[in-house]
């Protein structure tokens, strides 16, 4: 923090009082706070007067009223007769789904493009650069619409769907996949999965402690992965496969059954992932380039295997540079998912701040709830990642 030692004025009287840094500090703060309180009070008084004048109410009573409109894609069950509060939850679930999938996709894509920008192949390097420049310099809103019309709306119609093994189907109504239907005993599989994860964590701890004590390395990552995958698989087989699959099948106008996501969702996720991947690619590239050449050479002179050099020397240092901007990119994805409104995907803003607001007229409550959600999501994610960031940063000496 900024710490400029302030002079203590030796003068006396009024001038001394006015020039005293502490006195000034208090005056500044009281004035600012007073002004702010006055402003808020003024806003509140105006709002009350306005609402009285127009006969509007600001409560949350409407949350229990039936919304009465359909939502094209819901992660949690919803019917036309459900309440506004349910609509709010549907919006949140949809927003989170988009954000999570887009974050994963953008990270992977960004990593690939970032590495492509460092490629030895001129064409690949140039294409990667063109990709980054073009996509980074056009508004995301335009890109979402372009993906929707340029790609997903041009896919074949349901009758001519692209099918894979009778399990997956792709057409301009969406992407269809089998849905798991748990049967009796499936809970045990989940228990086994949790146990596997716990085992893997314990194993990793033990391996690290042993390595610190004896210097003997232990392949904790493959072993842990085997544990996480193996435990539930074994449980699944032992229990006789307590899981059925609901397969999508063409019936009537479209595919029925299974799980599906609409094209607006695909367009949104792809656009978000592709757009953000440009920024992530640049972050990855600058992160890797920020690790000094000396580090490679030092590692080589210590006879550390090249694969270990990347994992143990380069990546930990690069990550320190990569993580902070990456956090803000992830938050950007969450915020940018609000552009779903452009292609009509029912995310929180589209279904709540647009449709619900329009149908119920409850501006204040709806806006407040929307903002509260985004604030909570953003602040908790950034708190979480900042904590991680602080842990990584502490290793700096």
């Amino acid at each position, binding site marked *: 923090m900024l710490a400029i030692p302030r002079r203590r004025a030796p003068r006396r009287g009024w001038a001394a009082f006015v020039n005293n840094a502490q006195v000034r500090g208090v005056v500044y703060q009281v004035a600012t706070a007073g002004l702010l309180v006055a402003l808020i009070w003024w806003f509140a008084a105006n709002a009350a007067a306005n609402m009285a004048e127009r006969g509007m109410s600001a409560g949350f009573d409407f949350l229990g009223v039936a919304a009465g409109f359909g939502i*094209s894609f819901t992660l949690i069950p919803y019917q*036309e*007769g459900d309440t506004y509060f349910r609509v709010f939850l549907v919006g949140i679930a949809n927003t989170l789904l988009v954000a999570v999938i887009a974050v994963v996709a953008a990270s992977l894509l960004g990593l690939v493009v970032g590495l492509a920008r460092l490629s030895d192949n001129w064409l690949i390097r140039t294409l990667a650069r063109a990709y980054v420049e073009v996509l980074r310099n056009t508004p995301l809103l335009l890109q979402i619409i372009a993906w929707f019309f340029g790609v997903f709306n041009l896919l074949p119609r349901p009758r001519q769907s692209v099918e894979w093994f009778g399990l997956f189907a792709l057409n301009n109504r969406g992407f269809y996949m089998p849905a798991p239907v748990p049967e009796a005993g499936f809970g045990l599989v989940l228990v086994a999965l949790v146990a596997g994860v716990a085992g893997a964590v314990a194993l990793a701890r033990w391996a690290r402690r042993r390595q610190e004590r004896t210097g003997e390395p232990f392949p904790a990552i493959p072993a842990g992965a085997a544990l996480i995958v193996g435990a539930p698989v074994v449980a699944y087989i032992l229990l006789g496969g307590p899981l059925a699959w609901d397969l999508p099948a063409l019936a009537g106008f*479209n595919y*029925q059954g299974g799980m599906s996501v609409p094209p607006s969702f695909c367009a949104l996720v792809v656009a978000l992932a592709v757009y953000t991947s440009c920024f992530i690619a640049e972050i990855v590239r600058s992160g890797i380039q920020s690790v000094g050449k000396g580090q490679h050479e030092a590692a080589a002179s210590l006879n550390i295997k090249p694969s270990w050099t990347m994992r143990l020397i380069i990546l930990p240092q690069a990550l320190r540079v990569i993580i902070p901007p990456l956090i803000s990119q992830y938050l950007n994805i969450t915020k940018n998912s609000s552009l779903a409104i452009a292609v*009509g995907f029912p995310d929180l803003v589209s279904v709540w701040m*647009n449709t619900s607001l329009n*149908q119920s*007229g409850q501006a204040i409550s709806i806006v407040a709830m929307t903002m509260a959600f985004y604030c909570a999501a953003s602040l908790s994610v950034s708190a979480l990642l900042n904590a991680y960031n602080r842990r990584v940063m502490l290793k700096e000496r």
Partner: protein
Amino acid sequence: MRRQTLLFSAAAFAALGLAAEAGAQETLAQVKERGHLNCQVGLPTPGFYALADDGTWSGIDVDMCRAVSAAVFDDPDRIEYQSVTSAVRFTSLANGESDMLSRTTTWTAVRDTQLGMTFAGVNFYDGQGFMVPKDLGVTSVNELDGATVCVLTGTTTELNLADYFRANDLAFEPVTNENVNVIVETYLGGGCDAYTNDKSGLAARRSAFPNPDDHVILPETISKEPLGPVVREGDENWSDIVRWVLLGMIEAEEVGLTSANLDDMMESENPKVRRILGVEGNIGEGLGLPNDFMVDVLRSVGNYGEVYERNIGADTPIGLERAGTLNAQWTEGGILYAMPFR
């Protein structure tokens, strides 16, 4: 920092205080003082509030604004058009930015009673319909069970769709957007099986398809959509003005008054005509307008029939045949029925 904040807020308070003075008057006085009418229309839509590349607005709803402007100012063009999205249409009216709203707004109980506004009448009776590609082989809405339906969001259309399918125990999947072009492109690309909107809109859109004949509009009309001008609640005089300008235009058509025969009709002995033209009676006075306010309206905008034919009639690209529909005069089988102008 403190000084700047202080200065800024002082200026802001002062400016707002001044503006607040002006807000406390009646709408008519306010409009007159301002010198123009703030008329809210929607984002450009052919036939109702169409925007041409030279920046002029036209359409049946725009003519409603022009008629009010003519009644108040004796000049149909003293209007500032405010084109805003449907999401903010009511707040914009409620907080006084717009004097009236003329933008295919459906008259519903909730809107009339709970959102602080008054419907001044109906200038177009619409109904919601469905369009499907011919090769789908569907002939009735009831065959659309399980279909994907494209619908404009933020409108009553969205609610009617849900209601109708729920009432008839049909399943459907909505594809929503607030941009008509996006919806139409989605429909044309096969992203939905059917496209639902007010029937006037369906016909207009179909005329602009690459192959209009490949699409049919299903016979059912699943909702009532009385569309009309809206004003703020609480100013009876202003809502009366808008209402009686509209009714006057309808009445004028009924008695055969047009912009063309206006001058001849001034000498008419028909008391109905004389009352409309303000030669007899004092209807204008009661509204705070000159008694001959309808003369200005009819001269510059015309009667209801003229407005209809000019903007959405059979000879326009919108091509909505009027005869035999709800929008015909009650004397000709429609339900357009002006309250007596006396």
